[in-house]
């Protein structure tokens, strides 16, 4: 229980005695694991989602190969002959990149016409638009923009190249003498990205160490504990799952947990040197944190352990990362860290935060129960709103896309009028029901263009279809629209809700449609898993509450645990819904980090508060002690992580930007909840009304 103070003197003595061996053991084990296991960092979550996509299975059953679709947008100041030739060159270069199947652009488009001079002719001609002079291209596309609007903007300054490939394509190596933007969300991070990510982390840690603790020991400890935890976690995950890959976002989860654990131990060692020698400070660092840090492990193990049986590798990997990193960080903090810190002492043990702690304690001791009830009721209403949205909207999280191309396939036996009619009906319904569908490109469109060039009359009979197909083959245009077993449909979206469109496509029954681009398949898998992931998160919250209730032997603490963990998540989901953020692995990881850190904070806060109350401290004094010993490390870790997350939004990689944005927002919400709601909830469930009546232990210990 929280009033027991473990006697760690002998333990610390042993650690000090074998400190060099302990440090060497951890370092060698970590280096060995790194060299032997060679973990493979991945920054794209596509593989995770695709591994459990039902749509992908359907697509693969048809022997369709998923394709990656990238979009290269080039901005030019003018469109003259020189620009045209350079853009043609880029088209050719793109077509010759490894793995590229097809590049759609104005420079791959064809002008279809019937050169009727005097007599009529049934000969349709096709002229690659790129062969026309630039002025004529501009005039022609301006006059007939419909087939080309997805490739060029009205002012002829922005050109789009849609690249279909078997693997993610990088364009950095190409010579593009214009400003350009390349969007390929599934592209992997480079070594440079990872180094930038590591550099940001190290810089923030060193800055924290200098500014708050006025030394470099804190940074050394933080970096070494984090590194060893990171390597240890992935080594254990590899031994359990056999998977060498780890998502970069998961490394952030491990870092957060490691920093969270580390700061409680380091901070106590640091401030204890104000009154004690370093050896006694080390003892206090361990014996005051041994229990609360240990309690985090069963809380996470019991609450998250059941989720490991869920048939989802994403859920398993995330929960496993959280549990293992927590256990490894605990081991490192009680063994490696004391061994390391035993070599040092601090010159400035005073931390100028006592006034802040008093301020918080003063404010919150006079909390208004009425306001608390209103806030809790409001949060409950938000939860109900989310629940209603979840049950009514299949795609809970909209995925608003600026410019995206989706590719679909429709199996066919024969291209006849009935098949074309079905595709046309699908296209019309898609356009009618969803805003933002710029263009639907299929064999129907090209056949109609060929027919119109041949015989511009209404009605489309079988003979005209056969003739259009004839010209399609004659000019080798069919490979963009037909392959051996399927008709291809390309949908261009601008400012559209891709989730809603995916739902429409998946539930469309009049035509067998298969998603074939990796982005849509991945997005579809996210939609499939939304309920499961949110349910698993909620069940984890309930389990955490139960376990906390058992540990503290109090239903009230269990309810505090549930509320304090759920509040940041509920408000974060509301934030995502309001700002139309998409559900991604990054968002889920941010939520999981929040659960991990909040559980840790609740236990440390509860431990410190009730321990102080048990030893006869007043409610206000207990709050001050809680803020000083548990609140400050919680604030520091939240601030450090918020700065790290915030700086990640400045990187080039979309995955890191998302983790950064989600993490920073959730960390802020969690911090506010920990500082303003959690202490008040603890006060609300505090039944030690009169401390004088409490049984006292024979030897009262210092909290």
């Amino acid at each position, binding site marked *: 229980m929280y009033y027991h103070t473990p006697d760690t003197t002998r333990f610390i003595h042993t650690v000090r005695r074998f400190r060099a061996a302990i440090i060497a053991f951890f370092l060698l084990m970590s280096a060995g694991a790194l060299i032997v296991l060679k973990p493979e960092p991945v920054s794209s979550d596509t593989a995770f989602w695709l591994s459990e996509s039902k749509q992908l299975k359907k697509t693969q059953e048809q022997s369709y190969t998923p394709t990656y679709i990238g979009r290269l947008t080039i901005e030019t100041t003018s469109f003259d002959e020189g620009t045209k030739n350079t853009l043609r060159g880029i088209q050719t270069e793109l077509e010759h990149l490894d793995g590229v199947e097809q590049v759609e652009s104005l420079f791959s488009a064809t002008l279809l016409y019937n050169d009727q001079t005097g007599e009529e*002719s049934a000969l349709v001609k096709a002229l690659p638009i790129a062969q026309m002079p630039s002025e004529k291209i501009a005039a022609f596309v301006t006059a007939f923009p419909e087939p080309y609007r997805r490739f060029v903007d009205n002012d002829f300054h922005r050109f789009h190249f849609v690249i279909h490939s078997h693997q993610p394509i990088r364009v950095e190596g190409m010579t593009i003498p214009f400003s350009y933007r390349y969007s390929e969300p599934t592209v992997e991070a480079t070594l440079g990205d990872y180094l930038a990510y590591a550099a940001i982390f190290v810089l923030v840690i060193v800055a924290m160490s200098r500014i708050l603790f006025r030394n470099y020991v804190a940074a050394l400890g933080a970096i070494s504990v984090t590194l060893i935890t990171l390597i240890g976690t992935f080594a254990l995950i590899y031994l359990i799952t056999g998977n060498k890959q780890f998502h970069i976002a998961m490394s952030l989860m491990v870092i957060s947990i490691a920093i969270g654990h580390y700061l409680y131990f380091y901070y106590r060692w640091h401030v204890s040197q104000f009154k004690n020698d370093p050896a006694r400070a080390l003892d206090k660092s361990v014996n005051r944190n041994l229990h609360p840090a240990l309690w985090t492990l069963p809380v996470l193990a019991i609450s998250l352990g059941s989720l490991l049986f869920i048939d989802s590798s994403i859920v398993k990997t995330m929960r496993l990362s959280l549990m293992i990193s927590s256990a490894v960080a605990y081991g490192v903090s009680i063994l490696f860290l004391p061994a390391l810190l035993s070599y040092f002492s601090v010159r400035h043990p005073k931390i100028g935060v006592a006034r802040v702690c008093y301020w918080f304690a003063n404010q919150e001791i006079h909390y208004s129960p009425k306001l608390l009830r209103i806030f809790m009721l409001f949060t409950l209403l938000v939860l109900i709103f989310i629940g209603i949205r979840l049950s009514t909207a299949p795609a809970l999280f909209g995925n608003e896309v600026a410019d995206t191309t989706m590719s679909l396939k429709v199996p066919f036996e024969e291209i006849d009028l009935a098949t074309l009619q079905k595709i046309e009906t699908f296209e019309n319904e898609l356009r009618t029901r969803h805003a933002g569908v710029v263009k639907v490109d299929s064999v129907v469109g090209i056949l109609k263009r060929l027919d119109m060039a041949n015989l511009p009359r209404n009605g489309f009979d079988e003979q005209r279809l056969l*003739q259009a197909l004839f010209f399609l083959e004659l000019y080798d245009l069919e490979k963009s629209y037909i392959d051996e077993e399927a008709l291809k449909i390309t949908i261009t979206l601008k400012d559209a809700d891709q989730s809603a469109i995916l739902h429409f496509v998946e539930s469309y029954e009049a035509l067998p449609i298969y998603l074939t681009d990796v982005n849509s398949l991945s997005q579809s898998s996210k939609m499939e898993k939304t309920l499961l992931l949110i349910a698993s998160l909620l069940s984890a919250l309930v389990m955490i509450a139960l376990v906390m209730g058992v540990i503290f032997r109090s239903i009230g603490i269990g309810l505090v645990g549930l509320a304090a963990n759920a509040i940041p998540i509920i408000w974060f989901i509301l934030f995502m819904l309001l700002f139309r953020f998409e559900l991604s692995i990054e968002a889920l990881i941010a939520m999981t980090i929040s659960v991990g850190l909040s559980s840790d904070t609740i236990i440390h806060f509860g431990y410190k508060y009730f321990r102080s109350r048990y030893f006869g401290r007043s409610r206000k004094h207990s709050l001050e002690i809680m803020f000083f010993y548990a609140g400050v490390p919680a604030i520091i870790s939240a601030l450090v992580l918020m700065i790290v997350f915030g700086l990640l939004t400045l990187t080039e990689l979309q995955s890191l930007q998302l983790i950064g944005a989600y993490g920073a927002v959730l960390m802020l919400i969690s911090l506010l909840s920990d500082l303003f709601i959690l202490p008040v909830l603890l006060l609300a469930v505090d039944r030690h009304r009169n401390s004088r009546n409490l049984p006292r232990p024979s030897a009262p210990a210092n909290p």
Partner: protein
Amino acid sequence: MIRTAKFPTFWATFFVVITIALGGRLYGADLSMQQKKALLEPLEKHAMVYGEGAKKVYVFVDPKCPHSRDFIAMIHENAKMRGIYRYYIFLYELKRFQSHNLIASIYASHTPLQRTLEVMVGHKEIPSAQSADPKAAETIGDIARVADEIGVLKRPYLIIVKEQN
């Protein structure tokens, strides 16, 4: 009163009849694919068959028409299209090109397809037939009769037969 009432009725009927008749003649819309096939299959004996594909394409061309020449040149240069389709080529004059004698000369030759390719793809000048070869005349007549019934006004004019599984 009676005359003014009958006059528009007469002209309206006249225009409707003329429109239907001309419409049918112009576009050959009245003939179904089955009817066209029934007309074309007996004509195959006069066709120059080019390509080995499974799908049949009946093509009416004028050897002097530039579009017809473009079309034949495209087929000639495109082995893939000769592998998918089998072309039944008929030479059918467009009056303004006055190619009757040239057509007769080609049909009178021993290798009409070879000669057609020489003229239309190779732009070779060949002497036009001075005296009518009765067999060539019969061929030209048969083709003209069927083309007329189908309503072939364009050159090239294509009729593609749907592949039967």
